[in-house]
């Protein structure tokens, strides 16, 4: 799977229609028996009595794409996948909107499910991406991942 480096970044939120389109495109791949999808959605967290209105994402894009490429190669070696797609928002994503879309497909469900989870965990740890939590009172705070 030594493909060229793919872009994963999308400006703004990831729309349900974009996700549907991704699913639709896989209907011609008839060796697939299962898809696993993870979606990250911006939560209206309350931090010190301030409410999150949106998250603004920035990234060290070149490095993130290189790291994502290595994660992809690792995941494809570890699991018998047909496909692996990753999309991450940059810029402002409002509360309730989707900022992360990880999509794995395989002949049998176990590979897709495990690969999806491991990809999500690894990209959260390893990609140089930052979320700035924008509060309803116009103040902000840098997000901390658990």
């Amino acid at each position, binding site marked *: 799977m030594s493909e060229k480096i793919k872009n994963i970044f999308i400006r703004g939120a990831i729309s349900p229609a974009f996700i549907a389109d991704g699913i639709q495109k896989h209907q011609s791949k008839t060796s697939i028996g299962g898809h696993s999808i993870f979606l990250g959605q911006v939560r209206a967290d309350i931090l010190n009595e301030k409410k999150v209105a949106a998250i603004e994402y920035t*990234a060290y894009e070149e490095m993130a794409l290189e790291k994502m490429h290595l994660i992809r190669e690792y995941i494809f070696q570890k699991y018998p996948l047909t496909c692996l797609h990753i999309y991450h928002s940059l810029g402002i994503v409002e509360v309730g909107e989707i900022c*992360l879309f990880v999509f794995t497909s395989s002949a049998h469900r176990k590979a897709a499910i495990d690969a999806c989870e491991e990809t999500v965990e690894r990209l*959260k740890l390893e990609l140089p*991406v930052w979320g700035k939590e924008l509060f309803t009172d116009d103040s902000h705070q*840098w997000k901390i*991942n658990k």
Partner: protein
Amino acid sequence: MAIKVLLFAQLAELMNAKELVVENISSTNELIGVLEQQYPVFKGAAYVVAVEKDIINANTKLNDFSTVALLPPFSGG
């Protein structure tokens, strides 16, 4: 020896800059020493250092036009 230093997130905000060019630097430890001396915000700031997009864990020699990135804790996804 001109080193390009990329800043992100909190560090870019505190420095009000996304990029610095620092002269006469030959290693990452030297670079960090100079930055901490010139800009107090780097003292006690949480970040890892990447040289040419690879995170380093020890002092690393820098070349002319090296790109060093200072990366606050990641919070994507």
